[in-house]
């Protein structure tokens, strides 16, 4: 987004330096807010939902966006409104909404943020502050509101309040934007219907209709929109993602420095990891350290402060309040603690019946309680199971309260038992960041697998060592291109986490990735990749390998129990420090892939490069569709001849292109199940090459075996037949087979001169 002046801090709570990593969300909001004149007349304007986990920073994003628009003083008139906890009283809500809008409008027009605070003043006072050119408009809005108030019609009053931003913006020639925070408070109120009416009203080019952006508790906010196709067509969902470790660490370090708190890199890292990158918890700890003048230079200093804050400080008060809001009564409070403790201690999803059974004696409305916990994302409730949300601070809080208040454990006179446990696990918490990084890298990589051609040595550390030992990484990257042996991974459809385990010095996590070889969606082509990601300080020894194999075998049995047709299984072991000679031999004997973390990086780089170096769109393209009939391929050959001649190819090259194309057409015809009995061709001329794409629908150009580009015809007749692909490869410079969702295509490239002579 563009701002002439640096934005002022008006409603936002963080300085710009502390508000990093949100450009993507702000850009999305920006494009939502600004609709140019042409688009206004042709396109339906969208409203927005800003969704994200609790405490991820949605409110701050809206407030920052307001500040930017306010400071910019441009064509968008921003109005930020946080819904109060209780919206039952329509009149009270209408008064509050109207006066806050009016104050923000006057402040915006006068470019004076201080006037925003006048919202609590009588309407007449706000009106008097309006600039001369807006006075009549403001006066008229106030009169309309007052008259609706006197009529006693709550609905009319509400509509006057909700329509004020549109009316004021129209007068001022601006685009109205309403940023509604805490919109979940609308759920179950009469206001909800009015808001939906406001969201849906107005035509495509109705400038009086504001654009609304709603945020709040995502599970409730997303439920506010009824299943109305037209409404959903006009909703743009913006996801506020969690900020990265690096951004949070930088902000934590900066804040600690600002408060003069002594820290070290290690304690900063521990704080960020243990508090799960949650800005609110981190800020609470830093504020507590600042107010007590405490140092955070050692782990125990942090853990002591953490427990103090968790049990009797800001974090504790916040969680107490949250608990009271979800479960106001004593019985419900106990039920909630029982439910949370049961699910947290289980460590895996618990059947919902087991949870309701446990809490039934404390609350008559166990379903309602679970629903509220789910809305607050304190539990994940599905139809069959209840799971813990993975908030480590909430987990510690529940454990501490449960021990003291339910289990009745005596409290130590100083310190806390949980403190000792935290200290014991602090190293693994630090390591978990590294492990999580690698794990998400692997999952992302597996998800990108899609029949690409990857150098085989990246799946075989022995071959890699033989070929590239002593070479620098840059040299290796270059040399990989020349590798003849290739692995074509399947198109991965889903990846399951099979859990983790550890023993001294080694930890591992296992995954099951299911997909289709060659991207051909048949049972015969379904394949399971069992992947072990091993973090060890030494090369993996054969004893540990045996344990991991047992776990993978058990996982395989589980998968086979689900699908008895699963016949093709590939095992891939990725060990940070490689494998001992014996372990490596054992893996080779069972045809398992063997990689290291270095190989993982290289595979990722390789796939990224493949994706980035996709062919740019050529200057001219021609398309031809021929029927699958005798000699129709000649039409294709003639077309190719004319195009190649126009592109200055030699007669010899033209003949080669024609012969290759004929073979491609024959193969496409032979292997097509296409109901239209047609072969589609595209001829693209680039500066120095002709790219011909031949596509068919139905089957593929040949049977893919997942390891190499498939042969085109498996049963040669009288010798030469079946060598069509060999002919194509020999006559063209580059040949790529690609599968598509409904068939396959062959992409053949001929250079004006061969690449090695250019």
């Amino acid at each position, binding site marked *: 987004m563009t701002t002439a002046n640096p934005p002022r801090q008006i409603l936002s709570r963080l300085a710009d330096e502390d508000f990093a990593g949100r450009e993507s969300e702000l850009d999305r909001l920006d494009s939502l807010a600004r609709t140019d004149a042409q688009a206004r007349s042709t396109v339906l304007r969208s409203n927005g939902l800003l969704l994200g986990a609790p405490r991820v920073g949605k409110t701050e994003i809206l407030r920052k966006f307001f500040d930017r628009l306010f400071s910019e003083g441009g064509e968008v008139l921003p109005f930020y409104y946080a819904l109060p906890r209780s919206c039952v009283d329509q009149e009270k809500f209408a008064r509050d909404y109207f006066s806050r809008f009016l104050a923000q409008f006057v402040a915006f027009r006068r470019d004076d943020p201080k006037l925003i605070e006048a919202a609590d003043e009588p309407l007449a006072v706000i009106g008097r502050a309006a600039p001369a050119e807006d006075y009549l408009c403001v006066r008229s809005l106030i009169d309309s509101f007052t008259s609706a108030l006197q009529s006693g019609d709550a609905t009319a009053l509400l509509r006057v309040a909700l329509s004020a931003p549109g009316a004021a913006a129209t007068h001022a020639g601006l685009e109205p934007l309403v940023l509604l925070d805490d919109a979940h408070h609308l759920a179950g109120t009469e206001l909800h219907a009015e808001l939906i009416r406001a969201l849906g009203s107005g035509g495509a080019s109705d400038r009086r209709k504001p654009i609304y952006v709603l945020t709040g508790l995502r599970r409730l906010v997303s439920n506010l929109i009824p299943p109305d196709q037209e409404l959903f067509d006009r909703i743009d969902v913006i996801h506020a993602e969690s900020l990265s470790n690096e951004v949070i660490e930088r902000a934590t370090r900066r804040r600690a420095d600002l408060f003069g708190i002594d820290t070290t890199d290690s304690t900063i890292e521990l704080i960020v990891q243990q508090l799960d990158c949650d800005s609110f918890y981190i800020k609470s700890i830093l504020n507590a350290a600042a107010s007590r003048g405490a140092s955070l230079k050692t782990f125990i200093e942090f853990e002591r402060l953490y427990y103090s804050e968790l049990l009797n400080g800001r974090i504790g008060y916040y969680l107490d309040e949250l608990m009271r809001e979800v479960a106001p009564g004593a019985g419900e409070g106990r039920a909630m603690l029982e439910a949370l403790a049961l699910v947290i201690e289980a460590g895996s999803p618990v059947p919902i019946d087991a949870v309701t059974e446990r809490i039934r004696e404390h609350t008559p409305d166990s379903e309602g309680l679970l629903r509220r916990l789910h809305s607050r994302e304190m539990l994940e409730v599905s139809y069959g199971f209840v799971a813990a949300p993975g908030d480590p601070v909430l987990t510690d809080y529940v454990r501490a309260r449960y021990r003291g208040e339910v289990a009745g454990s005596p409290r130590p006179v100083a310190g806390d038992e949980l403190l000792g446990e935290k200290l014991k696990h602090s190293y693994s918490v630090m390591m978990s960041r590294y492990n999580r990084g690698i794990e998400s890298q692997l999952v992302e990589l597996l998800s990108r697998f899609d029949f690409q051609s990857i150098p085989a040595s990246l799946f075989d550390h022995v071959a890699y060592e033989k070929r590239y030992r002593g070479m620098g990484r840059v040299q290796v990257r270059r040399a990989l291109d020349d590798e003849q042996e290739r692995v074509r991974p399947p198109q991965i459809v889903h990846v399951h986490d099979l859990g983790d385990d550890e023993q001294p010095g080694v930890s591992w996590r296992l995954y099951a990735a299911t997909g289709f070889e060659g991207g051909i969606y048949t049972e015969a082509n379904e394949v399971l990749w069992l992947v072990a990601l091993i973090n060890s300080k030494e090369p993996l020894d054969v004893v540990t390998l045996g344990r991991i194999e047992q776990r993978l075998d058990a996982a395989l049995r589980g998968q086979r129990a689900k699908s008895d047709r699963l016949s093709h299984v590939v095992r891939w072991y990725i060990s940070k420090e490689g494998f001992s000679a014996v372990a490596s031999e054992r893996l080779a004997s069972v045809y398992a892939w063997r990689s290291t973390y270095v190989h993982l990086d290289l595979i990722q780089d390789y796939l990224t490069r493949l994706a980035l170096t996709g062919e740019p769109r050529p200057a001219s393209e021609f398309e031809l569709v021929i029927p699958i009939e005798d*000699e129709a391929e000649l039409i294709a050959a003639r077309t190719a001849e004319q195009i190649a001649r126009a592109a200055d190819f030699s007669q010899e090259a033209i003949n080669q292109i024609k012969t290759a194309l004929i073979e491609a057409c024959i193969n496409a015809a032979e292997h097509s199940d296409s109901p239209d009995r047609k072969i589609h061709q595209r001829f693209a001329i680039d500066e120095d090459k002709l790219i011909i794409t031949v596509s068919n629908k139905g089957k593929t150009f040949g049977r893919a075996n997942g390891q190499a580009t498939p042969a085109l015809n498996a049963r040669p007749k009288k010798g030469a037949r079946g060598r069509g692909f060999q002919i194509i490869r020999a006559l063209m410079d580059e040949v790529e087979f690609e599968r598509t969702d409904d068939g396959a295509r062959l992409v053949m490239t001929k250079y004006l001169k061969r690449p090695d002579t250019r």
Partner: protein
Amino acid sequence: MSLAEIRARLMGDKAVIYPGPYLNQLRGESIEDQCQELLAAGVRRIVINFAETELINSIGISILLGVIESVNGAEASLVLSNLNASNRELFEMLGLMSHVEMADTEEEALKTTPDVDLVQFAG
């Protein structure tokens, strides 16, 4: 399927076959039939003149391999002549050159064979 007309010249116990501009399955099968007929009629040397043949596909070549086998099996000889560079490259690539005699021209392939009337065959 339409009939593929193949031109041929018969000269005593020698014959020349002209596959036409495109040697595919249809024309390949016509040539195959024609060769059988010629061999049955006592022809002992068959020349296939590719001067007009611009394109050959792999099915045509596979049938040609069958023709080579059957001519050799009948103790006759087959010569391929007038191949353009592309078709020659294709034959080399598929290893045909080692199974059959090649000549640059039809005359060379026939050597001293006298001209006779042109005969039209249909396969």
